[in-house]
C-alpha cells in the first residue's frame, strides 16, 4: 500500500509528541494494525527503518500488534472472524458481511527517552 507515507505520518506524530511531551528519542513504537487495514507489516517495517534514519526515531524498534478482522454476518446474525474483505462467512459461506473491526491503523504507545 502506501506504507512509506504511513511511516512519514508516524514520524510526524513522533515529532509533534516529542515537542508536547518533552522527549528526545523514540526507542520503541507499538502499532495496532488490523488484518483488513490494507497495510503490509513487512513493507511497513522496511519503510519505517528508512524513514527514521537521521531522526529522533533512528534505530527504534517497531512492534506491530496485528488485530483480527471481524464482520457481522447478516445471515448468521452474528459476529464472525474474516481474514480478507472478500472472504466468505466461515459459518454460512455467504457474503452478506459488514466489516466491524480489523481495519484500524493506530499508534498505541511509545517508549521514549
Amino acid at each position, binding site marked *: 500500500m502506501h506504507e512509506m507515507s504511513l511511516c512519514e505520518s508516524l514520524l510526524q506524530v513522533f515529532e509533534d509528541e516529542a515537542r508536547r511531551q518533552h522527549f528526545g528519542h523514540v526507542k520503541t513504537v507499538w*502499532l495496532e494494525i488490523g488484518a483488513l487495514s490494507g497495510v503490509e507489516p513487512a513493507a511497513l517495517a522496511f519503510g519505517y527503518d528508512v524513514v527514521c534514519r537521521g531522526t529522533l526515531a533512528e534505530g527504534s524498534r517497531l512492534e506491530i500488534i496485528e488485530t483480527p478482522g471481524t464482520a457481522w454476518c447478516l445471515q448468521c446474525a452474528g459476529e464472525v472472524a474474516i481474514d480478507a474483505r472478500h472472504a466468505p462467512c466461515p459459518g454460512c459461506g455467504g457474503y452478506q458481511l459488514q466489516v466491524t473491526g480489523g481495519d484500524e491503523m493506530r499508534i498505541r504507545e511509545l517508549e521514549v527517552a
Partner: protein
Amino acid sequence: MCTVCGCGEGESRIEGHEPHDHAAHDHHHDHEHAHAHSHAHDHDHGHHAHAHDHDHAHDVQVRGDDHDYGQGPARAHAPGLSQARMVQIEQDILGKNDRYAAANRGRLMQHGILALNLVSSPGSGKTSLLTRTLSDLKNELALGVIEGDQQTSNDADRIRATGVRAIQINTGKGCHLDAHQVGHALDHLQPDDGSVLFIENVGNLVCPAAFDLGEAHKVAILSITEGEDKPIKYPDMFHAADLMLLNKIDLLPYVQFDVEQCIEYARRVNPGLQVLTVSATSGEGMDDWYAWIRATRQARLIGHPALKRKDAATGAAV
C-alpha cells in the same frame, strides 16, 4: 510480571482504564506495591479533549492486561536500568489526514458542494468519463475539478478544454491525494456554492482507499478491459466506494468480461455498492450516472440555501 524482580503487579488493573475508555474526565492515580519503587513513568493523553496523568511503577499495567510488551526495558523497573518512559498516544496513524478531511468536509457541506472522489486504476478511462460528464452537465450545474496526477498537467488541460475550472495537483512521488492538498486546492479553486466538485484521484486502486479527502462519496471506475476480478484483487478500494461505474461497456462484444460476475465480486467486498454500467465513448448509461449525480446533490442540499440560489440562477429544476 516484572522481569527484574518477579513481582506480579502485571495482573493489577486501574479502575477506569479500559483501553478505549476516554470519557471526559480528569484524574490522577498513584500505585503502591508491596515493595518500593524509586521511579515512576508518566503517561499523558494530551490529544484528547481532556488530560489525565498516571504515576505508577509499571507501564504495562496502564494497558490493562491486553498486551504483552515482550522482555524489553519497558518492563524493567529497577532503578537505573532504564531511563525510558512510556507515552500513550492512541492516535490513528492517519489522524492528521483525517482532521484535514473533516475540515474539508465541513467546508464543502457549508457551501452545499457535492464532492466526489473518483478513484480507479490508470487507464480505466477516468479522465474521458469526466470530460464527457463535464461537457454534458456544465450548462445545468456549476462544476469544478481537482485533478491529481504524479506528473504533468495534461489531464487538467483536457478538463479545462471543456470550459470547466480545474486545479492540477501533482503529487510528485506520492501515490494518492491527501486531504491537506485538497484543502489547498479548494482555497485556489473556490468552487461555487451548490456546485459539484469532482476530485480525480491518482490512478491507483490501492493507496487512495485509505486517504479520506472530505468527499461525500468515493466513486470507483472500473473498465471492462481490466478483468472482472479487480474488486476482489483490490478489495479496499471497492469497499470504500459507494458507487462503481463499469466503464467501456461499448467494448463488451470484443473482450471476455463477465459483467454479472464482476458485480457479484464487487458486492462480496461491499454488499451495499451501487453499480452503473456506462460508456464514456458511446454515451451508453451516462444518463444514469447524471441522474445519480443530480439526485445525490439534491439530497444533500435539502434545506440548504445554496440549492435555491443556484437553481434559481441556472433555471434547473429542483
